[in-house]
């Protein structure tokens, strides 16, 4: 328990949690007030993706500790711990969004939330493995902005490129998210944060 507390503090978990909660509530309230065309219409994926990406980005800063060299001196098995860190963070982000769905009712389904939170967290982990925790957020952020600005997908490559906005159950979206989760988590678990 004591190890967990110290670890959480060194990985800025409290601050990240606060940021996730704030972003989720903000977007949910905005969705309810600014209402994308009133009830009854199709569910817009945008707000939910924003919450999930904001959550993943908030947790990204904790993927590297205060001192990488010091971390490495600890004679513990890092691989399962790092993998668990990524997966738990993804689960927390998803849970947070599912919780605020009660406020902003016009938000995504559970399948959508599961797919996107897993994929985005994998992407963040990949970013941390490639560039370090400080810069890990740039990868999901760039992809998110691309997905928002790109025209609606017509071909499979474009579906892969805009996976996070696809309706749940689309094969290309599910597979991209799955690959990102597996590759990102594995890369981060094995290699650790850069530097």
């Amino acid at each position: 328990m004591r190890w967990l507390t110290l670890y959480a503090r060194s990985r800025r978990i409290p601050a990240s949690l606060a940021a996730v909660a704030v972003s989720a509530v903000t977007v949910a309230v905005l969705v309810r007030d600014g209402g994308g065309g009133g009830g009854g219409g199709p569910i817009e994926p945008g707000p939910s993706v924003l919450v999930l990406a904001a959550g993943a980005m908030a947790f990204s800063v904790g993927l590297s500790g205060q001192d990488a060299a010091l971390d490495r001196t600890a004679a513990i098995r890092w691989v399962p711990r790092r993998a668990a860190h990524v997966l738990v963070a993804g689960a927390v982000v998803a849970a947070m969004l599912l919780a605020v769905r009660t406020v902003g009712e016009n938000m995504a389904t559970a399948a959508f939330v599961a797919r996107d939170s897993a994929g985005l967290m994998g992407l963040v982990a990949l970013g941390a493995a490639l560039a370090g925790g400080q810069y890990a957020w740039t990868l999901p952020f760039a992809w998110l902005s691309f997905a928002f600005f790109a025209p609606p997908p017509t071909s499979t490559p474009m579906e892969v490129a805009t996976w996070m906005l696809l309706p749940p159950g689309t094969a290309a979206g599910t597979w991209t998210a799955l690959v990102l989760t597996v590759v990102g988590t594995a890369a981060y678990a094995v290699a650790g944060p850069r530097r």
Partner: protein
Amino acid sequence: MNLRVLRTELRRSVAPWAGAVVLVPALAFLYLLDAAWWRDTTAWTAQWTPMAMWTRSLLFYLWPLVVGLGALQGLRDHRSKMYELLTSTPRPARHRAAVLTGITALTLTTAFALLVLVGAVQVWGNTAYTHAGWLPISLVGALFLVAGATLGMGAGRALPSALTPPALAMTAFVFTVLMHASLGRTETLTSSGIPLTEPNQVSLLSPTVEEVRDALLTLSASVHLGQTVWLLGMAATGFVLLIASTRAARLIALAPLLAGGVAALLVLPSDPARMYVVDKAAAEPVCDGPVCVTTTQRARLDGLVGPGKEALRLLHTALGNRAPVSVRENATVLPWGSTPRWSRDSVLFEFDDAMISGVKGKELTRALIAQAMVPMCVPTGWNGTAADPSAQSVAVAWVTGDLEPLAGTGYSAAEQSAAARPVWQDLKALPQDEQLARISAMRTAALSCEGDPLAALKGGASR
């Protein structure tokens, strides 16, 4: 401030990265995706103003990214854990801040200028109309990047937490998205009762612009002015935050941002029709006899004169003094969703019309005749060609004498002739003055966008 300091700063700061992040993804985005910015007269390589507008619309995601990168830069001193040492030197903090913002501004502006240059080289080869009216759009765009990065740096200095860069980037992104989606738009009904949204005043605080829908539309001067005021406030806040060392100074630093925002909202136009205005110089007609195009399209006038005059001659033979007397490119830009207004005296056409753009010579003559007899009543901004090709085909056949399918209607030749042949044969069987009466009724219905031209042609609802 000598060059060596600048060079060191260039090596040690994220400024070169910020420049690369502006240039490379933006170019990849424009070139890899085959989307609206490659189409028609509003393509980003076709005319100067659309080029400036499309590159500017990329700030949708470039701007939040630059704000985030600025925040990363602002955290550098905190991370280096030697800020106390720096404050103990006699050099004032504003000198260091000036070098940092200067080099960031330089790289960002260079990157954005290169992006615009890539477009400009292509536009240069594609249009005969060169003007400087697009420059303010790009200059304000570059200023947005610089001010955003400065604000990010200031925020990173004021709130030295690893969470600041992602939080700031995300906030900026949500801001641009909301300005583009709900907060920045008001819902209205068009004259024909179709609900749609139009940008409002607040949306102009966002760096991005509306999708380019007409090559003649440009941003008005008051938009540039208001945005510049807003950006100067933003940059001032960022800079003061970067050098402020006390809590009170940081609070005071927010004043320029707020003042800039308020002043901008006073200056910015609130009516959408005064945000995106028709560029008068670009819309000025260039004529060769009765055939006119706008200045932007004057390179295409030569190809149009022959077919245009021929179409007018044929129309005069067929309709007598009720025939149109000129062919003009449509230079009026109507609001979204409004019904087009056609003229009885001149054939109004648009180069984006699939019937006009892809054809030459005799085919172009026939397309112009079709446009003169039965123009389409699709609301502005809605995609759509002839809902029913038969009225146009029959009308053209009546003028030229033979029934041939038209190109670019979206219907195959077989479909067109199958639909048009019975109507054409019925019409031909009638006496001459009855034919003329029906054609007139059809034209009235089509030009006023009321009633069904085909029904009028068949002699049905010919009122």
